[in-house]
């Protein structure tokens, strides 16, 4: 056949390509041939990137948020399970690198006191012990605009203190309970105390904060988030040698959380840079973190249809495994604060990121406004306060290349609320901790 064809070509005279007149041919209205793109099914890098693009387009074009979440977590592969409450050493550095978070010691300045947020933002970083002057000036500054506004009544710390003491005394002293179950001390006294405290404080502060009046209180809700960060090479198995994103999943169970219908205001602008994110060269399994494969869940505590879709405050109770005495006994005193910080960072990242996904953002469609939430981590006596601002969801290997934004977490050290409960009296009550808690609960958008 080839020889026949060649003879035909060599024969002169019969020429089958016509002469084209230059200039007479107008460019066609639509391209004659389809665009030349990489294949979809080939085993090549361009085919992989084309498949990824098609997937991204599918997610972008999803009609509802539920459909978007379903497509986002459709592929189930082994992923690292990140536990917010962990005994791993220096877990907060690892968690900050996984979630691209900057830790700023101290709490952000109160919205009433902070006129230009950019000007005030470096201050908490510069002052090492920011809480004492911060709290001393914040109530004063917070109280002076309010009588000028003429709306809110005077904040009665004495009454709130008596409510707190009553809750504490009821749970620890007055109510006759059986002995706590083995290693379940936290469910016996601090758990009910925290529930009682938050519910009564939220109810009494709802006068001053209309956002609390429209809030929804969850007891032991579930908060889940799934994300990709970084790349690794598959080590063994039939997919050996391929480059895969590193998948993480947080499954968190806060003791209590408050969800609100309106978002909390931003603390600093979206593009602010308040520090550095630690870079860790080791594999996450060195932390230790272990892989498991199950459903990729993204959940804030209730489904997308709930009107209270933004988070306000979470309350975490540390389990018996992570109590202070254990760390002191093993001579790891510096890890006590690490426990609180890692819990705050991981839980709040999961919650704010899940809230952002409920609004339709994901790592290809980054957030256009920052998401702010707060958390209180406690073991019943010591309280640590955290405030988190989510500025970016784009943490995958491709999207993080040109992403200058970082998430920010403000956090305090743990401080005791009281010294000891004896004979129906609470000794050594610390008003500062109560004031922090009250300010957290009173946080609301500016227009309310």
């Amino acid at each position: 056949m080839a020889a026949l064809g060649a003879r035909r070509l060599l024969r002169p005279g019969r020429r089958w390509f016509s002469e084209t007149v230059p200039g007479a041919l107008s460019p066609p209205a639509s391209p004659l041939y389809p665009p030349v793109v990489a294949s979809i099914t080939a085993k090549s890098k361009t085919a992989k990137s084309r498949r990824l693009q098609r997937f991204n387009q599918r997610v972008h074009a999803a009609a509802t948020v539920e459909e978007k979440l379903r497509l986002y977590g459709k592929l189930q592969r082994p992923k690292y399970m990140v536990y917010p409450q962990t005994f791993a050493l220096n877990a907060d550095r690892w968690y900050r690198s996984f979630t691209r978070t900057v830790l700023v010691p101290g709490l952000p300045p109160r919205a009433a006191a902070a006129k230009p947020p950019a000007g005030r933002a470096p201050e908490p970083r510069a002052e090492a012990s920011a809480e004492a002057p911060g709290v001393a000036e914040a109530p004063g500054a917070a109280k002076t605009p309010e009588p000028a506004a003429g709306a809110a009544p005077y904040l009665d710390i004495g009454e709130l203190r008596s409510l707190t003491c009553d809750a504490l005394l009821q749970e620890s002293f007055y109510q006759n309970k059986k002995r706590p179950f083995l290693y379940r001390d936290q469910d016996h006294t601090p758990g009910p105390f925290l529930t009682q405290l938050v519910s009564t404080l939220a109810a009494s502060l709802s006068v001053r904060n209309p956002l609390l009046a429209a809030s929804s209180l969850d007891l032991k809700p579930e908060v889940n988030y799934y994300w990709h960060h970084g790349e690794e090479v598959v080590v063994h198995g039939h997919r050996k040698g391929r480059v895969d994103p590193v998948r993480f999943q947080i499954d968190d169970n806060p003791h209590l959380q408050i969800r609100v219908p309106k978002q909390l205001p931003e603390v600093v602008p979206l593009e602010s840079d308040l520090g550095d994110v630690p870079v860790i060269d080791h594999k996450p399994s060195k932390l230790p973190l272990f892989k498991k494969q199950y459903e990729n869940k993204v959940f804030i505590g209730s489904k997308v249809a709930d009107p209270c879709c933004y988070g306000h405050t979470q309350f975490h109770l540390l389990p018996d495994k992570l109590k202070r005495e254990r760390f002191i006994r093993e001579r790891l005193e510096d890890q006590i604060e690490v426990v609180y910080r890692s819990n705050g960072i991981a839980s709040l990242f999961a919650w704010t990121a899940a809230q952002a996904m409920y609004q339709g953002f994901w790592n290809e469609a980054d957030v256009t406004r920052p998401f702010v939430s707060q958390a209180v981590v406690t073991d019943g006596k010591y309280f640590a306060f955290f405030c988190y601002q989510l500025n970016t969801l784009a943490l995958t290997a491709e999207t993080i290349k040109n992403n200058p934004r970082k998430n920010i977490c403000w956090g305090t050290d743990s401080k005791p609320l009281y010294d000891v409960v004896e004979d129906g009296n609470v000794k050594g009550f610390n008003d500062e901790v109560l004031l922090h808690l009250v300010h957290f609960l009173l946080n609301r958008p500016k227009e309310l």
Partner: protein
Amino acid sequence: VFPGVRQAQWLTKTKLVEGLPPAVQGIVDNAALGLPELEERAKHMVSHARLWDTAEVAPRREQYCPVLFENLMHICRLMSGKYPSLSKRMLARNCRIAATWERESILLQVRGLSGILMNSMTPIPPVASKEEILATKEHVLETFYPIAPTIDLQEVNVYKELNDTGQCFRDGYPYSHPHTLFFLESANVRTDRFRPEQLRAKMLMFAFGNALAKAKVLHGNDPKVLDQPIVVQSIGTDGQLFQFMVFQLNTTDLVSNDGVKNLVWIDSDQNLYERAQCVPEVKKRVVTKPAGISGFQPDTFKKFLALYLHGTV
């Protein structure tokens, strides 16, 4: 065997009145509570508990019953903005109650975990007037001859007669008056749950036990007619049906069958909503039942709120 409330009435020497007492009904009808937006919130809370609370498709009763209760309590507590004395309340979970009394030479005892108890610093004022209390003298308790009234009760040898809710709380507890008891029937399997009639009987017995223990603490152990009747309320639910009860203890003289009786007002089988559909039901490509809460009854929530506010409004 036969309706449990009648048996409980005989055991506690109580007269039954259908419906809620006029004081509580007055709070229900009081329009100043701002109830329309509260109804909206209550509907959201029901949807949250029944539809949105879980990452799975539908929550089970063990999950949605307590969540619904907590949500309703959250709305009620937020009313303390308008009524500051509402903050003088405290919830106590897993309270153990024990009370003993004699009834026509039979020694009876109520013991056990009485659900969730709400205490307040101030007692609820008596709901029935003096005339109504005296009128109960003429009321004859229903007997069940030939069935002994202690049928279906467990007979045990009691070595110690335990008596107080001081057993539950120590002396000096500021919130010393039991206000309302809450019973949540949240077992998943229907046979593990109490039927509405049995639930009402259980509510009556525990309300009586709490009131009796309080009376013995306040007035001593001698059986007598109380000058200040003690009122304890009780609400029982299985996540959809609500039973409301207000119990007034007029007398601790329970040995004889005549004299002043105690009073109980029961409002039974109030549905909060008809159906909660998580996934729309589709038959032959047509949506027969859309997803969501249907048949929401705001009156039931109003009664819940009224019982909560009773005593402070």
